[in-house]
């Protein structure tokens, strides 16, 4: 799995310069708002999940941004993010670092529970 903690990155003397290719799979309403089922994003290796919002805003359009991103351009808390099948809360949350290679992300919108 091409993931490691930000701490590891900071400790590294030679931070990776490679590109990480992130395939983002959009489920449910996110797919409808984006008008597509998946997008591919290229980020400098070492980027965090937090930096993904900006790219998605451009690739997925205004309706997606309005519903899925905060005013500041970050993913809304109600958008659940899974990296290669693991929810980011089990990793380092929005600080989870995407290292080199290929990563598959799934984004889905929450249930409205309670």
């Amino acid at each position: 799995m091409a993931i490691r903690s930000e701490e590891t990155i900071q400790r590294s003397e030679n931070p990776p310069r490679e590109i990480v290719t992130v395939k983002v799979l959009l489920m449910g309403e996110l797919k409808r708002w984006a008008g597509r089922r998946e997008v591919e994003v290229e980020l400098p290796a070492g980027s965090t999940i937090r930096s993904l919002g900006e790219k998605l805003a451009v690739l997925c359009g205004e309706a997606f941004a309005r519903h899925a991103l905060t005013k500041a351009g970050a993913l809304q808390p109600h958008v659940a993010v899974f990296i290669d099948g693991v929810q980011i809360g089990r990793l380092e949350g929005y600080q989870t670092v995407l290292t080199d290679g290929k990563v598959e992300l799934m984004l889905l919108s929450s249930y409205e529970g309670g």
Partner: protein
Amino acid sequence: MIPSLKGRETQMQTVYRPGGKRHESSASDWVPTTCRMCLVGCGVLVHMKDHKVVNVIGNPDSPINRGRICAKGKSGIMNHYNPNRITKPLKRTNSEKGIGIDPKWQEISWEEAIETISSKMRKIHQEDPRKLYLQTWGGSQEFTTWLGVLRPAFGTPYVQTGVSPSCGKTVHSIQFLVAGGFHQEPDLAHCKYLIDCGTQMGVATREGFNHQVPDCAKARERGLKLVVVDPIGNNAAAKADEWLPIRPGTDAAFGMGMLNVLLNEARIFDAEYLKHFTNAAYLVGAKGKFVRDPATGKPLLYDQGDGKVKTYDDPTLNDPLLEGEVEAQGKKAKPAFEFVKARAAEYPAERVEEITSIPAKTLRRIGREFGAAAQIGATIRIDGVDVPYRPVCLDWDRGPQGHKHAWHHTWALAMVNVVLGAVNVVGSIHSTDSASNFPIKKWVEAGQDGILMSGGSTHRGGGHFTAFPGRTPTRPERWDLFELFPVAAHTRTLVPEVYKDPGKWGIDHKIEMVIHSPGNQVMAGWGDVQAVVNWYKSIDLVVGFAVEINETHELDDIVLPMRTYMEEGCFDDSSVYPFPAVAGEAVGFCQIQQGVVEPPEGVRSVGEVMTEIYQRVGILDEVYQALNNVKGLQPAYSLEPGKRYSMEEVSDRIAKSRFGAEYGWNWFKENGVLVWPRSVDERYPGRFIKARIALYLENFIERGEELGAVLKEMGLAWDLSDYEPLPHWRPCESYEKMRRGEIDAVGVNYKLPYAYGAHGNANPWINELCEKLPHSYGALINKRLAQKKGIKDGDPIWLESPVKKVRAVARVTECVHPEVIGIAGNAGHWAKGKPLSMGKGVNFNGLLPYGFEVIDVISSALDQCAPLKVYKA
């Protein structure tokens, strides 16, 4: 073993289950499973004899109930052996629908039922997934899993997980804001002063009354002071040191009055906590907005240490100013805490007495006692770690949520805990699942402006909609107008209201199909039943899963028989998802629901039926894909495209993914419950969470402004004054009507320990209890009001609301506020499929006016104050 289990092996405890091991061939045995007679999901042991259920007792190894069982749980046997049970799919043959209209059911084959449903769903999937509406509450966790998954896999936004129009309206949003978890409960192991506002603790409080009752009893022996604030002198009030009967819909005034006593009169607050763990020190400038650093946009604080203005995350920040006024960005600014104090000052005890009817001197005394008991600054050593000790808790739940201004009522109460630093620490209120290291590591984190941003329970795969930072409002596309409620968790309350005139809102699609669980939406989901029925009548195909035919099923086009919880096996990790029900000192646990008896021939599991439908619709692979992620299935246990699995196989894969290969479905079937210790940071995460709590909701100003612009564009004029950063009390309509003398009383609903929701009293044992305890089917009326109206105990009376007039039996008592009529449970059934409960008691929701004017503009909670005229029949 999965990585997360490493190092935990010695801590894992398999638990002993009385009655010996289960053997299929055994003639007599005890089987561990989960009760499903209400939402809690207590661990139970079912006694089997000759393949029949003969007894149900509480499972002592289940942390959620520790061997206790309530009357509902005991009477689960009678629900299982239900003479009114349906066992074959039914089709409606009468095209006319309405209250009391015979559907003229006709038995059909599973093939016909499944093909009819699949073909409609296929059409909707091709046209517009939003035409499908799902209701998942009640019966079994299978509905949440197999219907809930359609949100990501099918694309419908409509997954209604609850029934009640106040359920979870603010409690989850506020828990996410102040503590990062889903629900709340007091740390009774250490609490010394507990104020309960409308929780009905010990009866129906959220997920754990069967452990809260003994915990509270022990705490009282230890000296805990219990104060109950409630219009009804309920079970908790009967055990309390003090019962404060409060006028309905005035909780915000009580909360603000408490804050005024604490902050302005007694000056008791946790300054260090407020400075470093909340946004109370953020400087507020023009129009109530934070003063921000021009370069980064981050909010600024004034550091008294070096006299400089800094961003909230400046590493040199030492001693933020909490009180006073400074200059920042060339203008005067005050810390947000000054505004909190100023708002509280608008609620002196005398004003609060006028609003709430709670005497000023009582409020002052309680406020000071509560503040003193908080022991600001104290710590306690737990497992060798010094953690803050704040043994006070103001708990609230359903009562304060059920109002026109629900957000402000509940936010005011929540703030009382926050200013004392009494959140998620020893003795305080707790989020039930805000931090976890095992079996899933999840800690909430800081987001925008350094504020705690939580999107759901630690174990809740799907997450949740939150109030911070909120969403950008837009013209609505949805039937629940979700887009016009930018900080609400869910807005299903609006659906029948929108149906009155969908064109007004610009909704461009029709709800063509509903699939629902046995939760009784028609009786309990909204108010004015006729308005609800009108919406159901407009739907092309309504499909309901049923054990027996309730009022909602009477509007169905197809009814599918389902298994009872004693027949249904699934890895119902109810302790992990979605309702981890213990907090504070408790251990972590996971327990399952398993079938203990064979279902009647041909009655299939929900999962099997829905899987068959998804395959025919052509979405099964997407369903698997979503489940693999949401359920956290490890690669070795993933559901693979193109394959079909039995429900046992699915359960096994989920269990092994969560706990490792040796803890599969068979292990859980044998042992029932898995428990493990929790570390001190999981039990008391308050100061371990690296984020600030948004005490001052600046984002509400911006969301309100944006919403105002959208509404203006739509030609609508809503009163958006509730969109402000701090709580305020505003009267609901019933309150005003009482003031004007237009009504005699406000109808208030309360719960019974032995009946649950709108489907309890059809059970013969529960019915027997309700008949023997006469308040159950009666209407509580205060002695003074009864005298004034010439009503005596046992008299038949009329309760007349603007939408319905019902006959009831008066139960004269002093255990109800003098301006209130107390109505228990949700009875008054009319469905012929529930003959035992027909015509008994009162359907409370049916008395509630329903419409936009009685719905909270922030949370969409329906006001559950029923304006009533009361007179002898």
